[in-house]
């Protein structure tokens, strides 16, 4: 039986570039911006980095193949650099590589860097791309909002929710994230919006309107990890350690099998159960102090509250409307604005989520610092589409929590 990752690895330093429309920056500048912050936080020299993982979602309009672009941009010391891609969960995947390298003893200090240059595509939204030779002949490439909008149709039908009620709950998700993002100097979208604006926005993929969709941004984020012992030897005191790190990947059951009703994320439920066990969390609704979830679309965040066992099934939309996930609610969610407003540079997003939880746990989140003393910060990073995806969950917390 695997003993899990709990408390074996500590975060030594983190950094995050300002997300947004970085018209005048290449991936290089974005990576360096996050790297400089992380290195200063970690207090190490480049020569101390034993291995690195680089995550990107899109190749063509980003850095191109291999781990070389990160090695060059950051002038890494000819160490191992591995490029990873696992749809929008790529960021957590890079973090996982670095954490596992340290946990295995193969590396003392490892780095994860995620980067994306989405604003070089020439249009809004994510670029369309092939999904493989066979898939392109028999599948529906569609758009990201179109794929996730189907969650809403199935969720609404399953639970018998009036269309307007669900639309309002989805709108609340976005209004909350805009309010949070307004307090975050690194966020892409920093303007609060009201419910009516969200409800009446142009339709993108029914029933998702413009404000139900997250920002498409440029950005980069970096995590540097090591063992708790080395962290202490480098002078760190309040350690944030990794409590759980789980990935669940669809095997085709949702799309090809029988039984999935389309209203939830099968993989998130599996990853969550494993992560809670690994972290020693028995009552997520009361123990998870902070959540950064994959709110690529408002409906995704809403059903994720149920998939993470924070809300009861079919009740997530009511919890949303009750303000449970607002900044002053019982389970603050997307305190940094989330994908919705911090932005979604694919390869960086998973690391950005951990970055926020790390800052909050250390009390370094500035204007948006949550009240009380957070113990566990959960991040949920989802790649793909509801019927075929990669769900990644990283739980970090204060050492000893």
């Amino acid at each position, binding site marked *: 039986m695997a003993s899990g990752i709990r408390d074996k690895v500590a975060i030594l330093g983190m950094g995050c570039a300002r997300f947004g429309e970085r018209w005048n920056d290449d991936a290089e500048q974005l990576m360096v911006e996050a790297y400089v912050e992380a290195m200063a936080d970690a207090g190490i020299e480049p020569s101390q980095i034993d291995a690195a993982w680089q995550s990107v979602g899109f190749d063509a309009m980003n850095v191109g193949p291999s781990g070389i672009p990160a090695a060059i941009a950051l002038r890494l010391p000819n160490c191992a650099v591995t490029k990873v891609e696992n749809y929008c969960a790529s960021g957590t995947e890079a973090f996982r590589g670095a954490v596992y390298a340290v946990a295995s003893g193969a590396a003392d200090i490892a780095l994860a860097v995620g980067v994306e240059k989405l604003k070089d595509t020439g249009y809004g939204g994510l670029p369309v791309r092939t999904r493989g030779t*066979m898939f392109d*002949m028999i599948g529906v490439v569609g758009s990201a909002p179109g794929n996730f909008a189907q969650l809403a149709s199935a969720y609404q039908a399953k639970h018998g929710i009036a269309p307007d009620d669900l639309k309002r709950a989805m709108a609340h998700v976005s209004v909350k994230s805009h309010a949070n993002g307004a307090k975050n100097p690194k966020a892409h979208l920093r303007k609060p919006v009201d419910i009516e604006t969200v409800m009446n926005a142009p339709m993108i993929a029914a029933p998702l309107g413009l404000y139900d969709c997250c920002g498409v941004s440029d950005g980069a984020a970096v995590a540097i990890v090591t063992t708790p012992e080395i962290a202490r030897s480098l002078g760190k005191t309040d350690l944030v350690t990794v409590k759980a790190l789980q990935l669940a990947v669809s095997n085709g059951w949702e799309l090809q099998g029988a039984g999935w009703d389309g209203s939830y994320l099968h993989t998130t439920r599996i990853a969550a159960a494993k992560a809670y066990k690994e972290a020693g969390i028995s009552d997520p609704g009361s123990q998870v102090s902070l959540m950064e979830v994959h709110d690529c679309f408002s409906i995704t965040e809403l059903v994720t509250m149920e998939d993470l066992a924070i809300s009861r099934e079919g009740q997530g939309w009511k919890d949303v409307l009750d303000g449970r996930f607002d900044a002053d609610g019982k389970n603050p969610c997307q305190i940094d604005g989330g994908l919705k407003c911090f932005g979604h540079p694919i390869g960086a997003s998973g690391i950005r989520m951990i970055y926020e939880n790390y800052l909050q746990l250390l009390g370094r989140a500035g204007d948006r610092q949550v009240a009380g003393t957070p113990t566990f910060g959960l991040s949920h990073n989802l790649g793909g589409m509801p019927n075929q995806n990669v769900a990644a969950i990283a739980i970090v917390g204060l050492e000893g929590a």
Partner: protein
Amino acid sequence: MSGILSIGAYVPLMRLQRAAVYEANKWFAPGLRGLARGERAIANWDEDVVTMAVEAARDCLVGQDAADVSTLLLASTSAPFADRQNAGIVKEALTLPDAVLTLDVGTSQKAGTGALIQAFRSADSGCTLVAASEKRRARPASEDELANGDAAAALLVGPGEGLARFIGSHSVSADFVDHFRTTAAEFDYGWEARWIREEGYAKLAGEAVSGLLAAQGLSGLDIAHFAAAIPAKGAAGALAAKAGIAAEAVVDDLAANLGFAGCAHPLLMLAAALERAKAGEKILVLGFGQGADALLLEATGAAGQAAPAGGLTAALARSRKEENYLKYLAFAGHLNLELGKRAEFDQKPVLTALYRNRKAVLGLVGGRCTVTGTVQFPRSEISVNQNEPAIGTQEDYPFAHRRAKVLTYTADSLTYTPDPPNYYGMIEFDGGGRMMIEFTDADPASIYVGAPVRMMFRIKAHDERSGFVKYFWKAVPAAEGN
């Protein structure tokens, strides 16, 4: 003896209102006013000669054993491929065995009747599936634009009497060029209507009719159904009068609601005649183009008794009025609309992968695990069954004929489609198996969680660079009347 064993038809959903065409064009072509009545069938953007032939053939093969088909003929003057056998694509979509003869017939408006005559003549070598399908392009503001109709018919011809017994045929061939189109040309080039009417319809077609009657020792009064496919008002009636055929015997030319479907039209009119013909009644079918073919059939009355769910009547009943002439122009490829960056998605075909997966892609054949009975699309080496993922146990399992229900859906305004919004979602088939699929011929009222759908063979995408047409299956609303 050979006969027609079954018959099927397909007419696309949309009926372009001719008044809307005239309204848009009258500033330029006021002379079209006289033609601005009724409606014509227009293909959706994802339909062509191949897809319509497939649907007509599927309609024809309901209740028939496809394994009996030894030959497949596809007649058309507007097929998408000049060198890739169009009939071969139809064969794959119908999942006919590889051991069949497939053949394209074309280049004349009498190609449909010619193919049919050949099928009757070769009935001693097994069953022939004859499909005739047309989606003829016409210049905007032309008479043909108003007169044409997109549609397909299919007949299963073989030994025995079936619905109608083949008695004989008489052909007249002459290089009478009423219109032509070279292989390089986009549109037809035509000659004066009066000349065509007098020298073509009256004389050449008249000779085919009189020749057939003389050869069979019959008089015009012996003909109960005169299915003369001639795209000129009153021409068939004049021909009947001259041949001594009763005016009541002249079969309606479907001009009011369908339009003239080129070389498929005689077969569509035959389908109409067969639906009404009583046992023993004689049907004369006429196809015109560089001469004329005349065929004589004797109905057995079985067509009326069988009362199939499909057929021409059902195909015509499935209809939706379309008043948007610009939409028609766009679908027919006459307008260069701004498609947006998302239309730049690379649609380059992968011909190796298409060939090895042709059963799944063109035939919608999935897999069934012989151990657990789990069905799935596409089939795979390891079964999707979560409890018993057996390896290498799957056999072919066709889905195309199965009805399905909508599990999830969206109407996507972001993703590129020639007919926004793009409806797609997950469906689950009766008997199991599911897939993510595009919906077509859809509207907001017909697509919802639990909505019934059925499968149709359609164009998935065009590769703008190579011109290749990618085909796959889509789900269409299947509520009553659809």
